[in-house]
């Protein structure tokens, strides 16, 4: 039977809390892991912003501790390392563990009515592999000859031994490979679980949108992470064994014959789906949350699922828009431009559905709801600015400027982060049995969205003014020095944004141990995860529930007065 794999609850500390195979423990492990890395990546972002606003000034307080050899000054090599690792950490070790690792592990079995993932041991291995990847990546910061400096994209030949002679870049590639392996394991587990372990009655049409988003993300993970895995293998071989996959003959002086552009193709075949890997769960989560807190069925459930699926499919064929300036042929360039534009159609359907979901609702502006509306806002900004980047005529100027930085931070980083925050606050009561403080949560939300939007909108202005990204010092030439005032302004806002996250840390820690105890179903929603006891028993469900209703049947006319929701296990009263 779908839920019959019961084994005894472990009593040993290691089996219970460290090498646990229980999806709930693993979700919490991913949560802590992701939050720690989010913090590290965030500190890196603050260092980057400090350097941009005050080029060559020693970093106050922590500078002499972090960079003793330069007396607290971030030197250009360190700066390159910082933005490289900031990107890598935020994508692979911050957001992925939070929004896929934590939310996926937590939500999938509970929402579909399963007792655990279908491959619990693989699940455990998935976490410890990403943990190992994180360790390797962190260690790479301290090796001789410097850490990776080739950007998170790691383009050859900068990332081959032409530039980075030390082992930093190799270790970075190994870390990315390990993290990728972890994602594949997770993806296989999620997909098989969703396909095989749904509770009776939990049809595909009744899956909560969160699960849909995670399912599609898993498909992308399983299909496209191997591509970067192979690219990393080739890169490692180039670096360690002297092969020449990405090193052209002109550099090698005899031998060689590889192609650095090949790497860019491989990287972006993965890299573009990676954007959707992060954003699909976010879409799923807010699709649910908007409906939950507007107390209204998710508008166009099928359309939303269809749009997400369409994006999943399309994501594989638009990657070329990252390479418009690399000398792509005219035909390829135009095709990729067209295909990229087509992605806006499913995106519009999603926006349409979300906005209609809150339209004429009975909206409870709880913290998760605020984050969800925030996602619509920042993703709207980021998505629309994507048109500039997809259009070659404008991209030819805006490519590799701060415009792109603003664009992808809003689309991928901010949207996924907001959805992750929303999901954390939403699932917190079930996870830890306590409520997070709504007051601090709202304060955190407002102090996050305002500086965040202003930082990245300023980046649009900077990019349009022609400021290239990945520059250590914009004051070294007159052309850019006259734009420095915007860099300073963005830095002020970024520091505000950074310090606002301390509110979250405080709120999280405080609520984890001292928060108000939560009731079984504090949000009054009908999905299966909220029909269980709090705290959750080891096997989630004593009896596997039978699903008879959809996940979003809020405010059904036939519901009794004073109750606007219905559990998925309850029959809808006939109107």
């Amino acid at each position: 039977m779908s839920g019959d794999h019961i084994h005894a609850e472990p009593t040993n500390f290691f089996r219970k809390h460290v090498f646990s195979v229980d999806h709930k423990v693993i979700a919490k492990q991913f949560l802590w892991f992701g939050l720690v890395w989010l913090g590290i990546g965030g500190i890196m972002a603050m260092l980057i912003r400090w350097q941009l606003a005050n080029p060559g000034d020693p970093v106050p307080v922590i500078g002499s501790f972090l960079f003793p050899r330069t007396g607290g000054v971030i030197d250009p090599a360190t700066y390159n390392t910082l933005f490289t690792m900031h990107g890598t950490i935020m994508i692979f070790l911050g957001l992925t563990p939070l929004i896929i690792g934590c939310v996926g592990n937590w939500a999938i079995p509970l929402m579909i009515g399963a007792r655990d993932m279908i491959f619990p041991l693989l699940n455990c291995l998935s976490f410890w592999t990403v943990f190992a990847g994180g360790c390797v990546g962190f260690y790479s910061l301290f090796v001789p000859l410097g850490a990776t400096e080739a950007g998170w994209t790691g383009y050859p030949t900068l990332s081959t031994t032409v530039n980075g002679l030390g082992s930093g870049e190799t270790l970075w590639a190994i870390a990315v490979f390990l993290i990728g392996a972890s994602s594949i394991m997770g993806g296989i587990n999620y997909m098989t679980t969703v396909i095989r372990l749904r509770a009776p009655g939990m049809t595909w049409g009744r899956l909560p949108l969160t699960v849909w988003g995670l399912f599609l993300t898993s498909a992308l993970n399983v299909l496209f992470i191997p591509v970067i895995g192979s690219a990393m293998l080739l890169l490692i071989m180039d670096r360690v064994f002297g092969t020449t996959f990405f090193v052209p003959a002109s550099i090698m002086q005899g031998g060689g014959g590889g192609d650095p552009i090949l790497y860019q193709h491989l990287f972006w075949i993965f890299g573009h789906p990676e954007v959707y890997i992060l954003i699909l769960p976010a879409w799923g989560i807010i699709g649910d949350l908007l409906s939950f807190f507007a107390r209204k069925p998710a508008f166009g459930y099928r359309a939303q699922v269809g749009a997400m699926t369409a994006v999943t499919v399309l994501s594989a064929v638009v990657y070329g828009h990252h390479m418009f300036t690399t000398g792509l042929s005219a035909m390829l360039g135009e095709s990729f431009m067209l295909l990229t534009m087509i992605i806006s159609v499913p995106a519009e359907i999603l926006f349409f559905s979300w906005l209609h979901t809150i339209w004429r609702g009975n909206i409870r502006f709880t913290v998760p709801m605020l984050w969800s509306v925030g996602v619509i806002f920042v993703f709207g900004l980021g998505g629309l600015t994507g048109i500039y980047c997809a259009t070659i005529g404008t991209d030819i100027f805006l490519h590799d400027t701060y415009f792109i930085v603003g664009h992808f931070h809003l689309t991928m980083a901010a949207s996924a982060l907001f959805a992750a925050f929303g999901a954390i606050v939403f699932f917190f009561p079930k996870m830890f049995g306590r409520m997070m403080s709504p007051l601090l949560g709202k304060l955190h939300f407002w102090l996050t969205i305002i500086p965040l939007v202003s930082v990245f909108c300023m980046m649009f202005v900077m990019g349009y003014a022609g400021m290239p990204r990945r520059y250590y010092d914009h004051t070294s030439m007159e052309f850019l020095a006259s734009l420095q005032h915007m860099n300073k302004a963005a830095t002020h806002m970024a520091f505000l944004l950074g310090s606002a996250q301390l509110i979250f840390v405080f709120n999280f820690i405080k609520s984890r141990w001292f928060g108000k105890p939560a009731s079984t179903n504090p949000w009054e929603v009908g999905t299966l995860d909220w029909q269980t006891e709090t705290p959750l028993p080891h096997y989630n469900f004593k009896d596997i529930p039978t699903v008879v209703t959809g996940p979003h049947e809020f405010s059904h006319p036939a519901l009794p007065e004073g109750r606007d929701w219905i559990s998925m296990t309850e029959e809808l009263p006939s109107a």
Partner: protein
Amino acid sequence: MKLHTKMMQRLTSLWTSGITRASLGLAILCGMAPEALAGGKRWGPVPFASDFGYRFEDLFWLITWLCVGSFSIVVIMILIPSVRDRYKPGRKAHFDHGASLKDKRLATVISAATFLVLDAWVLVIAMTDLREAWWNIPESEEAGVYEVEVLAQQWAWNFRHKGADGKFGTADDILQMNELTVPNGRSVSFQGTSKDVIHSLFIPAMRFKKDFNPGDINSVWFKPITAGNYTILCAELCGYAHYQMFGELHVLESDTFDNWAADASELGVAAYDSEDTEARWAWDWKE
């Protein structure tokens, strides 16, 4: 606690009052205000100086206004329910799955309309622009095309002109480093590659950018329309001193340029060491 909660609700109701957008805009302005007060600051790009520069500006602002329009709709669609449909005990939300044929039609029509207005419009203009400007690299037989070979390296730009004899790789070639001098009003066609890592030739005033990859030759062109000095940047991360890899473009009026080219070619011959075979890097112009 109660008071705080109330205050927070106030803050949350910012959505409701339409101040949201204003406050966000204000935040941007507030952040920038101290720096903006000082003079000599730039907010936009330098004026374009190439004949296709206007295409970028036109397209950029077209997209901008389209985006402002559609984003306003999104914000309004957020604001209205935020004001009108806030939680009231006892009120029931409108029960609607949005699965009716009408809704499906509406979604389809709106998506299609948005696509046509937002994307297809931009797409058509962009395609035209590309074919008429950026990808319309002039053939070398065309009269008045000025050809330059570019060799990028960590961290400098090497430019090679044909010199007096009209051939690359000869003694009278003009070699420039981090400086490029071209005639005004003539199409300047580049072919470029790199010695080591990927670099990207970015001349903001000319509104173009092209990667130069090791082991491959890429072409790009522009036609200056205003004489003057412009900045050349590297737009692809190329290692430690990426931020210092910049040069200057001098666009000279054609008389001045002819004088310059004659002198430069002569000095090129004087500096040419026929025994130093190591120092050759020109290639035949690729069609």
